[in-house]
């Protein structure tokens, strides 16, 4: 991929190299307009959107734990998970509204249903899901309306896997290279991250005697998240670089350590008691949040550098012209 621009007289064409560091891949030379980005930087606020992704995962997987706890007669775990999902989804909606340029027009989200817009699909999903989590939590706390509460818990659990994973589609359905190129694995990363967050909340807040399922969920979720993340970086091509440099790298290192450490602690927690469980839970919650922040910032970095837009597209064109398809550059 060294020669990505045409031959012929090209005099003082402005070129930008990667960030002056020696990369493992050959340095891609590419043209740009004074190094300016091709794409617009995502305008979302990091805390709002990373928070939205994190809380949505926490809520969704907590609903699954709540339903499982109901079925297996673990009332304390059930209450913790129900309160967790209702609280998390409320905060996540608040983050979403806060991030709008016109928060007062939030309800315009429900003006149409557009299958081509993951944000539209997600808004309808949450419109159905959020009240269910609140009904489930309210019935549990009130100790009344048991049948309605059980129905709400079960319905919320039915929607929960979608709530926890649709957010991956939300960010991947963009022109942002480090998000879009990961669309195959990102939902699995987010599913694992949701599981560890919910397990973390349960470990931190429920009595250890009932958190066996949360401990196992933590371990399984961590394996899924870390495995899918590796796979994603490997399959993503050039855009994977942003996950391994600068600010995203810091967040993702932290996420990896906290999630793996938290899962390990969780596995040991049944022998070590409450403090250990609380530590494990906190680490898992923090790990999931750090992952979302890392993914968010990696996407922003990939949109800000024209290299991640231009070079893969150039390679695509070159591959196409090699295989003899008629399409030519521009």
């Amino acid at each position: 991929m060294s020669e990505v621009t045409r031959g012929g007289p090209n005099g003082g064409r402005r070129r930008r190299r990667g960030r002056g560091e020696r990369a493992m891949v050959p340095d891609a030379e590419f043209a740009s307009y004074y190094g300016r980005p091709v794409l617009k930087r995502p305008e979302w606020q990091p805390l709002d959107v990373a928070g939205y992704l994190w809380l949505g995962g926490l809520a969704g997987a907590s609903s699954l734990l709540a339903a499982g706890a109901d079925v297996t007669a673990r009332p304390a775990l059930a209450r913790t998970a129900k309160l967790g999902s209702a609280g998390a989804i409320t905060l996540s909606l608040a983050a979403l509204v806060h991030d709008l340029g016109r928060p007062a027009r939030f309800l315009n989200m429900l003006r149409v249903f557009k299958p081509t817009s993951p944000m539209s699909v997600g808004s309808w999903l949450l419109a159905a899901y959020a009240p269910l989590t609140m009904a489930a939590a309210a019935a549990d706390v009130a100790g009344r309306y048991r049948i309605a509460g059980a129905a709400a818990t079960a319905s919320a659990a039915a929607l929960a896997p979608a709530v926890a994973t649709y957010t991956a589609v939300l960010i991947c359905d963009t022109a942002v290279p480090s998000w879009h190129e990961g669309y195959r694995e990102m939902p699995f990363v987010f599913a694992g991250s949701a599981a560890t967050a919910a397990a973390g909340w349960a470990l931190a807040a429920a009595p250890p005697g009932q958190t066996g399922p949360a401990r196992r969920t933590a371990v399984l979720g961590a394996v899924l998240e870390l495995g899918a993340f590796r796979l994603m970086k490997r399959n993503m091509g050039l855009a994977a670089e942003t996950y391994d440099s600068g600010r995203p790298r810091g967040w993702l290192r932290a996420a990896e350590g906290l999630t793996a450490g938290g899962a390990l602690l969780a596995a040991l927690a049944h022998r070590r008691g409450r403090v250990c469980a609380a530590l494990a839970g906190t680490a898992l919650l923090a790990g999931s949040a750090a992952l979302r922040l890392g993914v968010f910032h990696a996407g922003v970095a990939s949109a800000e550098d024209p290299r991640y837009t231009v070079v893969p597209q150039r390679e695509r064109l070159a591959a196409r012209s090699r295989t003899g398809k008629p399409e030519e550059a521009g």
Partner: protein
Amino acid sequence: MTDDVAREAGHADPPPRMGFFTDTSVCIGCKACEVACKEWNAIPEDGLELTGMSYDNTQGLGASTWRHVAFIEQRVPAAPGGHEDVDVFDAARDLAGSPGGDQVRWLMSSDVCKHCTHAACLDVCPTGSLFRTEFSTVVVQEDICNGCGYCVSACPYGVIERRPDDGRAWKCTLCYDRLGVGMEPACAKACPTDSIQFGPLEELRERAADRVAHLHATGEGDARLYGEDPQDGVGGDGAFFLLLDEPEVYGLPPDPVVTTRDLAGMWRHAAAAAATLAALAAAGFAGRSR
């Protein structure tokens, strides 16, 4: 085929698809289009800065810049390519006497929203604020936009943007109001060299093909069309260009693809991940009692 976009969007008997053909080979960089656009559309001022990069202080398209003239200063050999009968060694000897030893060429190009056939901004807009007009152009309805910013991240050309003080997304409307009364867009009207041409897309494509052929015949071998091909990743642009260098030199993506082309695959993977999560939680409850 591509003229069916309006019909596909639900317009019963649409007029022909309208668009821009921006022939950058005759652009003189006067920025009349930028000014005309700002004036007609009453777009607010968005920063008076000196960038230090060429004459381009406008910098790029954005919420309050719907036409942007790019200026690219290139050093080229004195005898431009295509003149096969020129002896390059002779030419080089002649150059030795002249200061600098080479020449400068300016590329100027007026950029604009591409009014894509498959427009990512429109696809992802959750409110229906972005819509396809009867002229097959893509327009934001400012009374509906809630400023979610999704379109900003979705556009493969980095065109649409949220206006900071206002919160809503803005971009070129291809002068929807003027088209409605049979007038041409303000930029095309103001362009003194006809670099910006407005008309039915089919007609513009024919005119553009002739123009490229003519330029090739006169030795400008690098002339190429950008965004005119209905087979490209966005189904062709309603506003396409004639360029004299690679698209990325002008800040344009060389092979843009509408992100929603992969949407079915995204949902499939998300569904599989959702099932995995459910199975994972079930596994957590299976087996041991504690």
